[in-house]
């Protein structure tokens, strides 16, 4: 009987590993493709070259798009982290159905189709004559980044006893001192994780940027989309490899942070 049970679990194990490979491997394929000399995405690459990376770094359109994306993502991160941390602190002191409703509202942009949100924002900013401005893109993307900052900070507050804050205030610390000396160090991992997510969300966000950005403010995903509409250039593989590399780095950093907060 034991044997049979182990048998099924070996089959399940193989199946599960294949599924995980399906999730991870195809994306990583862009890396070998990007070093390909041939412009037809041959695999395995016949000749290795860095020409697609050179093309990226020597093309002002790509560079400008990268710069725009970085700037946008940083601004969104700051906005979402400040608003989200405050909201999480507020939420953590609440109980009851109101809290559930608020969390529902904050999370819902993740499930509501982004096309609908982008279109709604277009109508809204059109009334304000702000379509095509950088501000509109940032304000819109922040809606998508907020769920991550709020819930990450909220999560790190769950294990945080309110008595600590009370103790600090009993001992004479004002609310601001209490926040920076007591609360902040404890929830820092949540804030960092939330900020990192906010950055990734904005850096990768495409639909809002496509609808709201003006011609001079093409973000990296929009530039990729525009290029892909024309032809499947291997330059995109080079861009993709660099983005994936940075993402993996962020991923590793996050895990390191997560570990450290767990160790504490």
């Amino acid at each position, binding site marked *: *009987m034991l044997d*049979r*049970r182990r048998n*099924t*679990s070996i089959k*399940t194990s193989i199946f*599960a590993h294949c*599924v*995980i490979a*399906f*999730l991870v491997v*195809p*994306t990583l394929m*862009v890396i070998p493709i990007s070093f390909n000399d041939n412009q037809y*995405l*041959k*695999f395995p690459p016949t000749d290795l070259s860095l020409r697609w990376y050179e093309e990226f770094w020597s093309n002002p359109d790509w560079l400008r798009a990268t710069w725009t994306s970085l700037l946008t993502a940083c601004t969104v991160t700051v906005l979402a982290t400040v*608003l989200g941390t*405050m*909201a999480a*602190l*507020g939420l953590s*002191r*609440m109980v009851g159905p109101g809290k559930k409703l608020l*969390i529902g*509202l904050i999370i819902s*942009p*993740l*499930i*509501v*189709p*982004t*096309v*609908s*949100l982008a*279109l*709604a924002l*277009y*109508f*809204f900013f059109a009334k304000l004559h702000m379509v095509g401005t950088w501000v509109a893109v940032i304000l819109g993307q*922040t*809606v998508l980044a*907020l769920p*991550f900052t*709020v819930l*990450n900070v909220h999560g790190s507050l769950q294990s945080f006893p*309110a008595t600590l*804050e009370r103790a600090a205030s009993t001992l004479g610390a004002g*609310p601001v001192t209490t926040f920076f000396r007591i609360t902040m160090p404890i929830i820092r991992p949540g804030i960092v994780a939330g900020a990192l*997510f906010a950055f990734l969300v904005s850096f990768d966000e*495409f639909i809002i940027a496509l*609808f709201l950005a003006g011609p001079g403010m093409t973000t990296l*995903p929009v530039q990729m989309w525009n290029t*892909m509409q024309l032809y*499947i250039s291997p330059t995109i*593989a080079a861009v*993709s490899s660099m*983005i994936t590399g940075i*993402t993996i780095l*962020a991923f590793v950093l996050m895990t390191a942070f997560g570990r450290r907060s767990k160790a504490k």
Partner: protein
Amino acid sequence: MKQKTAWLIFPCLAYLLVMYVLPTAIMFMAPFEAGIAPGLTSFGQALQEPSYQRVMGTTFEISLVVTIGCILLGYPTAYYLSRMETQRARIYLMLVTFPLWTSLLVRTYAWIALLQDAGIINSFLMQSGLTEQPVKLLYNQVSVAIGMVQILLPYAIITMYAVMVGIRSRLVQTAQILGASPSRAFLHIFVPLSLPGLSAAALLVFIMGLGFFVTPALLGGRRETMIGTLIQQQVVLMGDWNSAAILSALLLVATIVLLGVYSRFAKLSNLVSVRG
């Protein structure tokens, strides 16, 4: 202390009301304001328009196929992960969520590179002599489904895992000690207990699938146009903002209704742990 800090929620709440709730309301009102066909008639007309009906049908069909695919691939995987030691499962779960971290356009591009006529899979098939001509893998429903399953599968796995991890192996073992065969014990004990996770995952994937835009636009052909793609086309190619608003409102209503059903048996906040 308790009430004192609750005000901190207000900036965020105000932000969402102005940047999310209000714009959505404006979008819903747009077809009424335009005055081409008064208000609700325009929604009725949209529902009867054959080309829209076809797109809605396609959207529904693709979402359904993707949902089935995610459950078939995700259920055994979630089961496997849920029977692991927590430490190892953590690492595996990180791999499962890896796609959610990588750029959507990058992943879509990777599929194009893999599936196209001169792509990796076809060159492998042709070099190994399995086929003479490249197999058409791209710009059809199969490629759209593959791309969407890869994006939505992590959500399905995490949702099911969250439920399965709470089911004790002891229960299944007890049934076996009492004489049930392993498969019978699994089917009669484990599967019923995991059903809430399965239905939550299915509904979630279906809802999220309805609103897809990038994947069908890049991996599909014209016949794989989904509502999301149509909305974008109405805006960018036709400049027809009113039709886009009507379609978007319909999509939003469908999403909200299904979300209401979903929230009856699953916690929405589970979603964020997917990425977190």
